């Protein structure tokens, strides 16, 4: 049986200005999965993420990490933030240090590790994100794509069990987007639970094990990609569209090109093998 790594139970959260960002939301994320969270701008995705590592505290309800209810004392929070890493949307918001090496060392240093261990982790994280040659470079002279990589290395060096990526492919060109998705698969294979928020339905459809659809502070639908994306009305409510693979598939069935009992293809490649 699979176990839950992050769980929210009926959480309500209002910002000081009165906006109700989360409205009695429940979510249960399974360990080791690839999870995509979809929804329009302002649906509450980023607010939920900040609950996952205890930056925000729900007005009502509670968060559980691996079955343990999150308490908001320093000790628990420290452990939680070690285990749940967030890569923020805008790398410029996250990078604060003058050079890459120092930047990546910040997180692990907060974990009270030895300097040697920290150094090892920094080198490891740079290797995985292919940024080793940027080691001595000043942060402000990096390109956007490089900054994005460093912001990921920042979190990897803390060796979290879950990594949350907030809109990781926005701004990236198509090639870099594909590379970063491959990278998500790679770290997922190493046992890290990967959660990402995105507007890109095609990406979510082909990549995720499980999908949540957000609208106005709540989850309006969840399930495997092939289930979730068949509900056209729910997609409409969340300002989303169908992935093109499903559209083409539906059409091919309509026109009798493929058999109506053919299972939904998961990727471009699967779709193409169906056509013959």
């Amino acid at each position: 049986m699979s176990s839950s790594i992050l769980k929210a139970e009926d959480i309500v959260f209002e910002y000081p200005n009165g906006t109700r960002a989360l409205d009695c939301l429940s979510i249960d994320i399974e360990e080791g999965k690839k999870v995509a969270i979809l929804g329009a701008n302002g649906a509450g995705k980023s607010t939920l993420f900040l609950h996952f590592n205890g930056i925000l505290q729900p007005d009502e309800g509670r968060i559980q990490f691996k079955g343990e209810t999150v308490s908001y004392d320093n000790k628990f929070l420290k452990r939680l933030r070690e285990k749940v890493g967030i890569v923020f949307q805008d790398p410029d918001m996250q990078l604060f240090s003058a050079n890459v090496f120092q930047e990546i060392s910040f997180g692990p240093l907060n974990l009270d590790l030895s300097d040697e261990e920290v150094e090892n982790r920094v080198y490891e994280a740079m290797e995985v994100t292919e940024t080793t040659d940027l080691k001595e470079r000043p942060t402000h002279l990096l390109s956007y794509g490089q900054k994005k990589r460093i912001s990921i290395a920042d979190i990897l060096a803390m060796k979290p069990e879950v990594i949350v990526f907030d809109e990781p492919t926005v701004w990236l060109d198509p090639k870099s987007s594909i590379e970063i998705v491959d990278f998500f698969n790679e770290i997922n294979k190493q046992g890290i639970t990967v959660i990402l928020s995105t507007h890109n339905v095609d990406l979510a459809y082909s990549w995720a094990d499980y999908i949540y659809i957000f609208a106005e502070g709540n989850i309006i639908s969840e399930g495997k990609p092939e289930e979730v994306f068949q509900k056209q009305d729910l997609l409409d409510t969340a300002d989303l569209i169908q992935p093109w693979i499903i559209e083409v598939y539906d059409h091919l069935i309509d026109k009798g090109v493929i058999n109506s009992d053919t299972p939904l293809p998961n990727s471009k490649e699967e779709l193409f093998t169906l056509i013959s």
Partner: protein
Amino acid sequence: MLDIDQYAYSNQLRQVHPVEKALFTFMTMLVCLVANSIITSLAVITLMVGVVIFKAEIPLQFLIKLLLLPISFLFLATVTVVITITNSGGDFLFYFNLFGWKIGVGAGSLIKALNLFLKSLGTVSCLYFLALTTPMVELLSILKRLKIPKIFIELMILIYRFIFVLLETANLIRVSQVSRLGYSSFKNSFYSLSKLVSNLFVRSYYRAKGLLTTLLARGYEGEIKVLEPDYEYSKKNFVLIFVAEILLIILTIYVGGGDFVIINT
């Protein structure tokens, strides 16, 4: 203008230990200030310009451009020393009368002004050497060694980084204002500029909130800790630095400029 920063990362003295570079800078600066002599100041300027151009391999053209900046400031300051206004006697090289006042150049003041000018330029060239050869990260690591309070260094880390972020912001806002003709007349320039500045601050305000969030997410507990890079000391460099300083001191004593009064104009 942040080219200085770029050269700091790419110059030929980049690999030299930052403590050695800082020692060279501040000892030379001290000699220059204490010596209070035109000859020593000239020697310091020559030395620093030479090291920056031949050792660090910074283009001469760029260095000249940099040196011209403080020169304009200094010129204004020294002019006031040169010009004397008096209604009694006085020892003038030349002067003219205006409503019974004598306005002119005093006899001693020309030398005094030249001394002031060169001394300032000498210390400025020392600082240019440091700024052009040593990246900010390394300067910060020197400050750490000097036991400057941690909180102060943390502030420097953040401020240095966010200067670039905000500079970019300011520039983007300016470009979008110019695109909408924001600076096409004196009146609207005034208006646009006020908006630019206020936006810069408002953006900063949000940035500060965002930064705190991202720091907390990475386990921030009130102290910004980063790992220091390692550098190798070089004995040869230490010897060179001391030889240079001693030569400067000998020169000063020889020309008799050293009345050892700190910065006395």
